[in-house]
């Protein structure tokens, strides 16, 4: 199982996933033209990671903007994590938001309400 890295662009976040630590980090702004195409490899990496013997995964999200198609892909990703959580994998989400950024806090709150998953909202 190899690591997974995508550098940031002006409209898509940096993504770093470590097979060793099981930490996957999404950081930046997310409004790619095709969110499905952008996030599918990330979802595939998570599936492979948790199906190939690893029992834990932590998703760190520190994003200042999601467009609607990115939000939809993120929800798909969280639903996948929730499935693994139900099958006793050690999965958690850390959702970072700037202290006075109500917008991103609310997106995190809304997503967490709909997903059965350890979900930490962390101001910074």
């Amino acid at each position, binding site marked *: 199982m190899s690591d997974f890295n995508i550098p940031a*662009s*002006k409209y898509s976040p940096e993504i770093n996933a470590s097979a060793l630590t099981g930490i996957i980090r999404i950081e930046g702004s997310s*409004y790619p033209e095709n969110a499905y195409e952008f996030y599918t490899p990330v979802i595939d990496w998570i599936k492979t990671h948790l199906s190939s013997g690893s029992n834990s995964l932590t998703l760190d999200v520190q994003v200042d*903007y999601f*467009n*609607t198609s990115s939000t*939809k892909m993120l929800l798909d990703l969280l639903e996948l994590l929730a499935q693994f959580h139900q099958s006793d994998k050690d999965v958690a989400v850390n959702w970072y938001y700037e202290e006075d950024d109500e917008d991103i806090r609310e997106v995190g709150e809304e997503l967490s309400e*709909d997903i059965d998953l350890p979900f930490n909202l962390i101001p910074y």
Partner: protein
Amino acid sequence: MPDFNLYKYYSEASEHGILVSFQGPLSQDILAELATMIRDRLGGDAVHRRVIHNVFAVFIELSQNILLHSAEKTCITPGSQPRGAGIILIRAVEEGYVITSGNQVEMIAGEQVCQRCATLNKLDSAALKQQYRRQLHSKSEVGSGSVHLGLMEIARRSDQQLYTQLVPLDSDMGFLKISTIVNRDAGHE
């Protein structure tokens, strides 16, 4: 060459408070540059953070709508992937910021968008939030549901009134305008 009065164009744009105006085929790069400019410019004007976010989000959704769904496609460079063309404006007015997009559509698609906007305009913010979440969770094919979700997002982030106008160009095609306002005091909700 027909006479074009640049000064008249410029002064009218200033009079109408135009902050951003782009016409032509949109690319992600152009969009990102314009979006950054909006953030910087509004940030410099000491506009409330939430208002900046809302203007930014409405701008992105409307611009990507043009880029992906405009019926008028143009190649930015010869041989490149054709991009949706249209016009996108942000105007500063007394109440806040008016964000407007215009692009060619098939009349049937345009009529559907107008109808959806009229439906969204009738919802209060709680109902809108509920519909947004339902749409977000729906297993619609990628792409097909995204226009609907985008319109809901625009409604949520604006004063909730989406103004649409569909001008027929011929029997099949029309020019669709979508406009909304983000209030300057939205940050104090």
